[in-house]
C-alpha cells in the first residue's frame, strides 16, 4: 500500500498537477499496489508518519502566498520530520519554491520550508517559458536518464553551496536561465520547475518515486509502456533533444 498525500491541492494545482498523481495511482493499480490518496489543506495538521509520498504542485502568486504562511506556521516541522524519515517529496514549480528558504516577490519575502538549500527571487525580465530537457543521475536508476517537460516560471532559483541540482539542463532555462542547473534534490526530496505534467512525459520517474517511497531494493515490474515511451520521445523532440 502506497500512501500518497497532496498538499493544498485546491490552491496548488494550476499546471495540470492532477496528471502527476494520476500516473502514480494508475501505474500502482496496474501492478496490484494499493494507493491511498489523501490531501491536507490550509490550517490542517500534517502527520509525518502517515504518508509515503508527498506532492506539492504550482499555484498563482496569491494562493502560493497563503500556502507559504501556512507552511511556516503549521507544517514546517512535520515536513522536516517526514523528510528525515525518507518520505518521498515531489514539489513542482510553485511547490519547489515553497520548499526552499524564501521567495522574494517585489517588496515581499515569502517564507519557505527550508527543506532544500535554495532561494528564489522574482526578477525583472521575462518569464522563463518553454520546452525543457535535462539529464539526471538518480540512485537506483540505470545510469544517466533524460527528463523532458515544460517550464513556465517568473522566479529565479539559486542553489546554496552544498545543494545538488536535480539535473543538468540540455535544452531550456532551468532554475535561473544561467547556471545550467534544473531543480534540486536532497535524498528523496525533489524540487523542479518541470511540469507539462512531469510524470506523464517521464513515466519511468513515476516508477522510481514509487520504488523509493516503498523502500524497495528492486525496480517495479515493467508495464506495457509503448504509449508512454512515445510520449516521452515526443516531449524530447519538442525540447530539441531527440532520443
Amino acid at each position, binding site marked *: 500500500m502506497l500512501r500518497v498525500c497532496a498538499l493544498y491541492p485546491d490552491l496548488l494545482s494550476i499546471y495540470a498537477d492532477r496528471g502527476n498523481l*494520476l500516473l502514480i495511482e494508475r501505474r500502482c493499480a496496474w501492478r496490484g499496489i494499493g494507493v491511498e490518496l489523501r490531501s491536507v489543506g490550509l490550517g490542517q495538521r500534517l502527520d509525518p508518519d502517515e504518508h509515503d509520498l508527498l506532492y506539492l504542485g504550482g499555484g498563482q502568486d496569491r494562493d502560493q502566498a497563503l500556502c507559504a504562511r501556512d507552511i511556516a506556521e503549521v507544517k514546517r516541522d512535520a515536513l522536516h520530520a517526514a523528510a528525515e524519515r525518507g518520505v518521498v517529496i515531489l514539489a513542482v514549480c510553485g511547490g519547489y519554491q515553497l520548499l526552499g528558504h524564501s521567495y522574494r516577490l517585489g517588496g515581499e519575502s515569502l517564507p519557505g520550508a527550508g527543506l532544500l538549500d535554495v532561494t528564489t527571487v522574482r526578477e525583472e525580465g521575462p518569464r522563463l517559458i518553454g520546452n525543457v530537457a535535462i539529464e539526471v543521475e538518480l540512485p537506483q536508476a540505470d545510469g544517466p536518464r533524460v527528463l523532458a517537460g515544460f517550464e513556465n516560471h517568473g522566479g529565479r532559483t539559486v542553489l546554496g553551496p552544498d545543494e545538488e541540482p536535480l539535473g543538468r539542463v540540455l535544452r531550456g532555462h532551468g532554475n535561473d536561465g544561467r547556471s545550467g542547473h534544473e531543480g534540486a534534490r536532497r535524498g528523496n526530496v525533489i524540487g523542479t520547475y518541470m511540469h*507539462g*505534467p512531469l510524470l506523464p512525459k517521464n513515466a519511468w520517474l513515476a516508477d522510481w518515486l514509487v520504488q523509493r517511497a516503498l523502500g524497495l531494493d528492486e525496480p517495479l515490474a515493467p508495464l506495457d509502456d509503448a504509449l508512454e515511451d512515445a510520449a516521452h520521445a515526443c516531449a524530447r523532440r519538442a525540447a530539441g533533444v531527440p532520443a
Partner: protein
Amino acid sequence: MSRLGPRTRLAVAAARGAAVLSRRAGRGGTSLPGKVLLRIDPDAVRRLAARLPRGSAAISATNGKTTTAAMVAAILERGGTRLVHNRAGANMAGGVAASLLDGRGDLGLFEVDEMWLDGVVRDLRPRALLLGNLLRDQLDRYGELDAIADRWAALAASGAARRMVLNADDPTVADLARLAPADGEPPILFGVEDDGVALAVLQHASDATHCRRCGAPYAYEAHYLGHLGRYRCESCGARRPEPHVVARDIRLDGIRGANFQLTLPDVAGPLPIRLELPGLYNVYNALGAAALATALGASPADIAAGLQAVRPAFGRAERVRLPGRDVAILLVKNPAGANEVLRTLALEDGEHDVLAVLNDRIADGRDVSWIWDADVELLAPHVRRVVCSGTRAPEMAVRMKYAGVPSERIVVEERIDRALDDAAEHADGPLYALPTYTAMLELRALLVARGAAEGSFA
C-alpha cells in the same frame, strides 16, 4: 476622411497600401494593415472609433468571444444596424484597427483578446463592454490568471467603458461590478438559474475558487461550468449578485442544440429560445449576447430571433458530411472549453469514434499540459475507438489511456491527413473530431479537399 488629421490620413493611406500588398503576396493579412496603421499613428483606433455615429461595443472572455459576437451581430443586424465588426477573429489592437480601416457602418462591434483588452478599450471608449468569463487558458502565453484579473479590475474602475455587461456566475468577472464608477451607467449582469444543469462537484479545471476580496474559499450552492456557478464567500460575505438577464429551464440536446427560457429586464414573461448551438457554454454565450444587445437598445423580438438564427461557425460544433461519413468538429483549446465539449459528447447515446488532434503551435499554446486538467474521464467510457493525431499525438494518447480508455482502442497517427482517413474509414457511426485551434484549420483544409459538404445528424 475629412475630419481626420494629416497624420491619421497618411497612416490610413499607408495601411491601405499594406493591405493591397499583403493580398497580392497571397497572405490573409487581416491584421497587417492595422499594424501599419498603428505604427504610424498609435492613436488611430481612438480617432477612427470616434467617427462611428452610434459608438461601439466590445466583447472579451477566455471562451466564447467569436460566437458571442456573432450572436450580437445577428441581433443588431436584424434591427437594421450596419456594423463595423472584426468577424475574422483578428482580435488584438491591429485587428481592431484593420476593421475600423475597412468598415463602413453605424456601430462598432469588436471581440478583443483578453490580454490586450485594457489598451483597446481605453482607445475605443465603448458604450458597452461585455466580459463573459475568465478561465484558465494558455498560461505559457500570458502568465497567470490573476494578472489579467488585476488588469480588468483597473479597466473597470477607469470608466473607459460607459457600461459593463458582466457574468454574475463568474466570481472574478462579477466582482468587477463593484468597481464601476458611481457616475456611470450601472452594470448589467447575466447568469444561469437552473439546478438541473448543475454538476455534482466542481470541475477540475476550475480556477477562481477563492474570494477576490479576502482570499477565503468560495462556498458553491451550484456549479455550472468550470468555476461558474452560484457562490458565496463565508468569510467576507461576498456573493453572486442577482442577474438581470437569466436563463432558466435549460434543456441540452446533445451536440444539436439547447432550449431555455430567457428573462430580460423590463420584459413581461420569459422568452422561449431554441439555440442551434450545443452545450451550456453556448447558453452562456447567448445570455451575454442578449445582455449586451439590451444595453445597446435592441428589442426583445430581435434578441430572440437573432439568437435562434445563429448557426455553428466552422469548427465550433459544426457538422459536415464526407462521402460515407458524418463528421462533427468540436474545437478544444483549453480545459474549461474542452470540458463543455466532453460533457456534451457524453450526452450522446452509444459509443463514439473520436479523432483527437493535439497541436502545440503558438496559437494552440506551446504547453500541452492543459489536457490533464480537462475531464477526459467523462468521455472515456463512451470511446469506441480514438485516433490521436497532431504534433503531440502520443501525449494525447497517454491522456486517453490514463482517463480509462483501453490501450487497444487507442491509435496514434501523427499525420493529420492519415489520421482523418483512418478514423473516417474505421468509424462505425459519426466521427467526432476534437482539434486544437491550428489543428482545426488543418482539418478544414483537408475536409474541403475531400469534398465535405454541410450535413446534419438530425
